[in-house]
């Protein structure tokens, strides 16, 4: 008998005892994950800020200027590495002449990474990002500053709705789908909350207004 056979055989015995008293149940969606588009957008912004992210917004044509202004305000230099998503690459980067934009995978010298988010879950102000053929998954977590661009129309109420957006009709999952909520943090040193241990020290969310 293989280990697999042994384990499954033992489980069949144990599980059988519990079947009578177990039942499926409907999902419980907290009130926070419900509301109309305006309410969800406001809640997303409020919860994202509560989690330590900063949130701004602009129309698509204004995103490069908004990024330039953010870097300037936070004194983060002029260079960004941009994930090679068509929606990002096609933005009018020339409208932000001070920015040096490199498209590709973040390297050790890159301090600011700009990627696209697939959805935002208002219940906790969480972004859903994904690995893919164009964006390196590491681009969402490698750099000290992460700027995530999210169309405001892609803000939904709860995690399940966000995942539905990701999976689409085919239902396939990418290799990695990550809900990002605020910057990287730890409390391992004397339970003192600290930011930026391995992932970004700063998460800036730029909502794209329709």
């Amino acid at each position, binding site marked *: 008998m293989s*280990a*697999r056979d042994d*384990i*499954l055989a*033992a489980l069949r*015995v*144990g*599980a059988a*005892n519990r*079947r009578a*008293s*177990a*039942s499926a*149940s409907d*999902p*419980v969606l*907290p*009130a*926070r994950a419900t509301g109309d588009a305006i309410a969800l957008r406001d809640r997303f912004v409020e919860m994202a800020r*509560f*989690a330590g992210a900063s949130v701004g917004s602009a129309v698509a044509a204004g995103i490069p200027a908004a990024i330039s202004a953010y870097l300037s305000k936070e004194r983060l230099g002029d260079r960004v590495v941009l994930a090679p998503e068509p929606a990002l690459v096609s933005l009018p980067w020339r409208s932000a002449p001070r920015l040096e934009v490199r498209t590709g*995978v973040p390297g*050790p010298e890159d301090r600011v990474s700009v990627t696209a988010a697939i959805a935002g879950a208002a219940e*906790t102000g969480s972004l859903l990002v994904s*690995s893919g*053929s*164009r964006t*390196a*998954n*590491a681009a*969402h*977590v*490698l750099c000290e500053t992460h700027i995530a661009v999210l169309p405001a129309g892609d803000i939904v109420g709860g*995690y*399940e709705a966000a*995942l539905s957006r990701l999976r689409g009709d085919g*239902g396939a*999952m*990418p*290799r*990695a*789908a*990550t*809900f*990002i*909520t605020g*910057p*990287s*943090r*730890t*409390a*391992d*040193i*004397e*339970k003192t909350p600290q930011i*930026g*241990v*391995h*992932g*970004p020290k700063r998460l800036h969310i730029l909502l794209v207004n329709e």
Partner: protein
Amino acid sequence: MNSAARGFPERAAAALADPVLGAALDKLQGEFRRDRGAMLSRMPEFEALRDRAMTVRNYALADMDGLLEQFERNVIATGGTVHWCRDAEEARATVTRLCREADAKTAVKSKSMLSEEIALNDALVDAGIEPVETDLGEYILQLRRETPSHIVMPAIHLNAGQIGDAFRKSHSDRDSGRDLSNADALLAEARATLRRRFLDADVGITGANALIAETGSILLVTNEGNADLVHTLPKTHIAVVGIEKVLPTLSDAMAVVRVLARSATAQEITSYTTLVSGPARTDEADGPRAFHVVLVDNGRSKMLAGPYADALRCIRCGACQSLCPVYGAIGGHAYDAVYAGPIGAVLTPALGGLERAPHLPQASSFCGQCEDVCPVRVPLPALMRRLREDSFRRPDIAVAGRRLTRFWSWAARRPALYRPGLRLGLAMLRLLGAHRGAIRSLPFISGWTGARDFPVPEGGSFVEKWHASGREPKR
């Protein structure tokens, strides 16, 4: 490493005498209580979320065999491989073999209590592979050659000075005069040191917070983001997971997500909540080429069939530890077990046998705080009591006060003997106590008077006085 030669009472005594530990535990528990209160006021539906999480976990346990088979099919469909291991030894051998097949020299790890349970790191070292813990708390413990003292906050027992000393000793390539006096400096050094290790590692080893049968995905939650670097940067990703972690659907996984961080740290959700499904696709920009899930039984299938099966619902949030007053007095290392606190008091004997940890189910006042906060309503005091029943019946397990308890029960069942016996005992105590109010030392109850004065009885039995007063109604 902690000395395993000393028994629980000795370890507890040493812990009680440690002021650094005491201060750390007071901070942990006081802040956790405060933060949890704030969390509850932000989430009025928390009880409904708990009920849903419990139901989801129960449903999964009731179909564990079918769900694991479905999980395996879907992992394979995404291009991954599933390995089944009956015990710790098979699991260590499997992971070591996979690392060797990947020509691994270093393996970066994200936090996995299961990998502690199977003693994986030692096996890797023996095989010439260097494991590097990347969770900051686990990394610090690795430097100090210590084990975790809390499921979620493994280094909570340490202060910044001890952490600085560990860095100074181990990061010998840095300027010995550098300032490590504050948490920011420690963090910056850890980030820089470990960044290099992430980038150079051949293999990434994670645990998993859940296995999702519907999609063949694993759930990984961290605040640091280290797991996302561990499962993305190296060429091979190995997830080592207990079989009881399986869930039916993504929606069920979200039910667990909604209570996990809220219970563990009183946050809304961890900074990073990831679903990994298979290795990198052929056209993917980054990610491992090989994805392995190592399923570990190590006593769980046997537990499922027994009286402690409800404890398999545990989602490893650590809330029971963060509130338990016994844990709050002695800390995690005193338990001398991978899992400490209330869940450890059940899992350790349930998985490894009562003789391995006879004190753990006994060292509880049954205050019930643990069950009160458990997000999946594991009935911890009832399970500990059931373990006490097993202990009571076993002559090989020494149970303090077994004979005294049996004598008391014997007397309580015989009111005709109990009354005169009580009269005598009370008279003796009053004689010993005279008018002082309390007795300082009583040889036959030194367990009480060792730490407390014993109040002298008022005198006489209430039942007898009541009947002597004529107040009992005539029938």
